[in-house]
């Protein structure tokens, strides 16, 4: 499933970049992160419990940074394996804009298999859209924090 | 405020099934249908899906038709359960006889659930119309008959008992 969108930030590209380029900060944007480990600047992993209301879906996620062009472009792959569930997401961010305005065009190709899928069509896509929405608003908070911190 | 009970992963369940009282320790996660089939060996109650859709597992819980695959055995603690084995004694009930008379079953796998839904309906409504029967059996899937003969059988059983 491919989803994409654009997100506007009241912050400079440097600030936004400093967030999406920092695994620790990015981790804070992910729903239900329970623990987090950085292997090296290209690889990190996390244990998450994706909140699904009726009880969470536990997954261990491995992240790999695929490509980066500072202040412009970053792409990474997230692979999750839970009990019987699988998630594989390749996502990329392209930054543009001047001064204190940054626009982030993002794309994500999400593959989900396992029990969430078998819960049915009617929930799968809404759940993904919802989780993406949460990530973006959390990202905004991180950016604002970094901005005021800077 | 009184202290809350401690949740446990298994509990002693006391339940009366077809008039016989049972006391068993049951894991909290065990479904009523598996408790009936695997623990009490009442294999007349069947399983045809894993989403609470097919009704093959329908039993009466305190006189009400429920899908025993969507009820935990621990939830039946203290309850009266009736399964297809408890419908009649050696003699067929008029409803069971009507199913046979109208060729309302082929493979027979959905039949126990159909009978439990139909008997619950007849208990509330002694002679239902065809439409009422269809509504009453909406929660039971049959793949052999196309339902026509089942609906006829229940309508006829109702007329007989009216």
């Amino acid at each position, binding site marked *: 499933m491919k989803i994409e969108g654009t997100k506007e930030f009241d912050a400079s590209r440097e600030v936004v970049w400093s967030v999406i380029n920092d695994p620790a900060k990015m981790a804070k944007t992910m729903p239900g992160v329970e623990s987090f480990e950085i292997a090296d600047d290209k690889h990190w992993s996390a244990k998450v419990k994706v909140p699904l209301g009726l009880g969470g879906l536990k997954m261990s996620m491995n992240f790999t940074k695929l490509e980066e062009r500072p202040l412009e472009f970053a792409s990474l792959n997230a692979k999750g394996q839970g*009990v*019987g569930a*699988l998630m*594989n997401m390749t996502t990329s961010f392209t930054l543009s804009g001047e001064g204190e305005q940054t626009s982030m065009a993002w794309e994500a190709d999400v593959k989900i*298999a396992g029990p969430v*899928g*078998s819960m*049915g*069509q*009617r929930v799968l896509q809404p759940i993904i859209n919802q989780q993406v929405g949460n990530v973006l608003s959390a990202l905004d908070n991180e950016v604002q924090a970094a901005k005021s911190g800077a | 405020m009184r202290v809350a009970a401690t949740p446990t992963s298994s509990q002693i369940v006391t339940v009366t099934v077809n008039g016989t009282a049972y006391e068993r320790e049951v894991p909290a*996660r*065990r479904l009523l249908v*598996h408790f009936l*089939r*695997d623990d009490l060996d009442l*294999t*007349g109650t*069947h*399983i*045809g*899906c*894993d*989403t609470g*859709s*097919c009704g093959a597992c329908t039993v009466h819980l305190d006189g009400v038709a429920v899908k025993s695959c969507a009820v935990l055995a621990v939830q039946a603690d203290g309850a009266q359960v009736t399964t*297809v*084995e408890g*419908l009649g004694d050696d003699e*067929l009930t008029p409803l*069971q006889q009507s*199913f*046979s*008379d109208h*060729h309302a*079953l*082929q*493979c*027979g*796998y*959905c*039949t*126990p659930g159909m009978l439990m839904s139909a008997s619950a309906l007849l208990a509330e409504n002694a002679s239902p119309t*065809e439409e009422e*029967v*269809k*509504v009453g*059996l909406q*929660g*039971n*899937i*049959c*793949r*052999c*008959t*196309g*339902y*026509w*003969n089942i*609906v*006829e059988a229940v309508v006829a059983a109702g007329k007989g008992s009216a």
Partner: protein
Amino acid sequence: MTTVETEGTTTLQKGFVGQNVPRREDRRLVQGEGVYFDDVKRHGMGYVHFLRSPYAHARITSIDVSAALELPGVYGTLTGDEVAILTDPFFQIAAEPGASVKDFALAVGKVRYVGEPVVAVVAETRELARDASELVMVDYDPLDVVVDARKALEDGAPVLHEDCGGNMSYTGVWEWGDVDAAFAEADHVVSISELHFDRFNSTPLELDGALVEYNRGTGQWTITTNNQFPGFAVIMMAPAMRVGTDKLRMVTQDIGGGFGNKITSHPQLVALCLLARKLNRPVQWTEWRTDFHQSMSHGNERWFLDTEVAVKADGTMTAFRTKAIDDAGAYLRYEPLGGVIWSQVAAGMYGWRNIRLEFTQAMTNKAPVSPNRGYSRMQHLWFTERIIDIVAHELGFDRVELRKKNYVQPGQMPYETPNGCVYDSGDYPRALDLVLDLIGYDTIEQRREEAASRGKLLGFGIGSTLDSGTNNFGQSQLLNPELQFSGNNEVATVKLDIFGEVVVTLGTTPQGQSHETTAAQVVADILGCDVDLVHVRAGHDSYWNSHAGFSGTYASQFAVTGLGAVKGATEELARQMKTLASMVFQCSVDDIELADGFARMKENAEAALPFMALGAIPNANNAGFPVDPPPMNARFVYRPPFEVPDKERKFGNLTLTYSMQIHACVVEVDPETGVYELVDYAAVDDCGVRVNPKIVEGQVMGATAHAIGAAMFEVFAYDDEGNLLTPNFYDYHVPHTLDMPPLKTAAIESPSPFTPLGTKGMGEGGGGGIHCIGAALQDALRSSGGAVVTSSHNPYHRVWEMLRHPERSREKVEVKG
């Protein structure tokens, strides 16, 4: 309301055959006393859970079961690596390239569809087995996925089975008559660029499973299961397991529906056999609904591309040519037999003499297909009915007249088709008139106007279809000349027991087809006794020695092969009974008759032996006889009269009988939403002599319900990653009571001249409902853009699209000349 009208039978029966004798099976089933495989327990039995692939196509890089084995209560596991050592790949029906498919009980090295069993885990409880399976760590290296059969055949497509050098399992050209000449002489040529028969199956309510015991002393497995074709299962299992077929004792009693979907469970059965031996304890596996939908027995999905139909000015259809692409899914469990089975009905119910069909089968990253009620003929018959209705639609012919003109006529029966099949009997035009009467065809235009006044689009459709039964397995040689299968057979044993009970043992594995009842009817008539004196054993057990290579219940044949065997065995028993009586009364056998439960002298009713005496003499009181008394025990193997078909011309009789059904329905479509309702429905059936009319009608009703589900609701749809989007009853909606239309049925009896009782197999029904619902939708949409129906499955959203964008289907159709 539900009305059921049945026309009086045309051949009057005397005795029990032809009567609605109450079903013997019912009593135990309505009391919940049926015995299905999952009702059987053994001491110390372990429960099996299969860990399944979440990927549609991936290399298995590692499997670690250690954590699972450490869990208390876990008995053991089985992986593909063990299976690859302990067994050989399953025998393949296909010639090359399909012959190179390597299919094992568990995934070996690669997974090829979502839901494929990868590891089996056995534990003390069902729940624990699933818990343990979650502790098994499997690493996958994902591969590109192909889910579209057309793309799977293109160069550069991801390849499922590298040894096959591509995804094609079978291809062949099937041509009869002079197709080019027929097109040269045609007044019109109608071309249809694409038709698609969707993927679904009949979803029996009981799922697959088995209890498997292994005896180390005898080296024998006892397999209590619901496989509906044990003869085929052991032929697949024994060589793979490197044992003789008699080491596999197949046992069933009651089966909760099969519809063909329970023929190909042999891979799981082998995994269970290996586990029972490895762990030295009984193992039990029950499949769940989501497992079944993802991994078992989908019906064949088929494309018909570049179809052309040659039509004369008067509507006579002289030829068609098309390219069929069949989607077998990831493995060839019963395939590529679908590549020949369709040709049993190559010309449908019509007089086509010139036919060319290029059949190519592809393997894709989807669940393997297997026979499904109407196996492979339903897809092709839907295609022939689409041709009729599209030609009528495009050239302005009346659909009823066009059918009557092109139907094979009653005067031509028995009729040899262009490919050498013989339609045994039937009166198709009369059946059509009958169904039109039932549905009130003459009032359709009024009803159309009345519906229009309510804002509804009303449509009427016809679906004529065949149910060919009793396979000549020699047709498999048209796909693979090396195969050593031909003909067909079934077995029955009938004995007179010590107290005079008549005991019948069948080789079949009924799943609701009432064999215990109809067999008793046939026996009682031959022995001149009451039907209640006849005991027909429930179920199948290969220990009974009452089975043969083709034993089972599938492909519309019991009324011919099963009852043929029953008749043969009972006639032999009758001869033995008369012989014994003649020995007792010192008279000629010809002076003895069987009547009213006695063997008696025709001329002297006083000289009568009750069945009890006849049973007692050989069994318990046989001293002093000058010669051996006959044993009162007969085993008969029925063999239909078949030749091996001509492999060069792809010519010969492929099935013995041709039952016929014509369905008609009326739909009302909501033009704003595409939602539609079946407001009227009728079906006429002709299956020759009906042993038990009510049971026959039950089969017609069941086939109708499956067709309604397939046409309106049921589809196995996949996304591009190979995820099944309808993996259980949340999204795979099957019809419930409130979804069913009123139904009227009628029957004609045109006895088959080729079968022992004039009966014909009829369990499958040929999908008539799919054909007539599509036709009715096309008729309803005529006034709203004239969309052409090109799919077998037409849910609301497709109807809405046809209403909004009729051009999308219109551009698939073209009329030349």
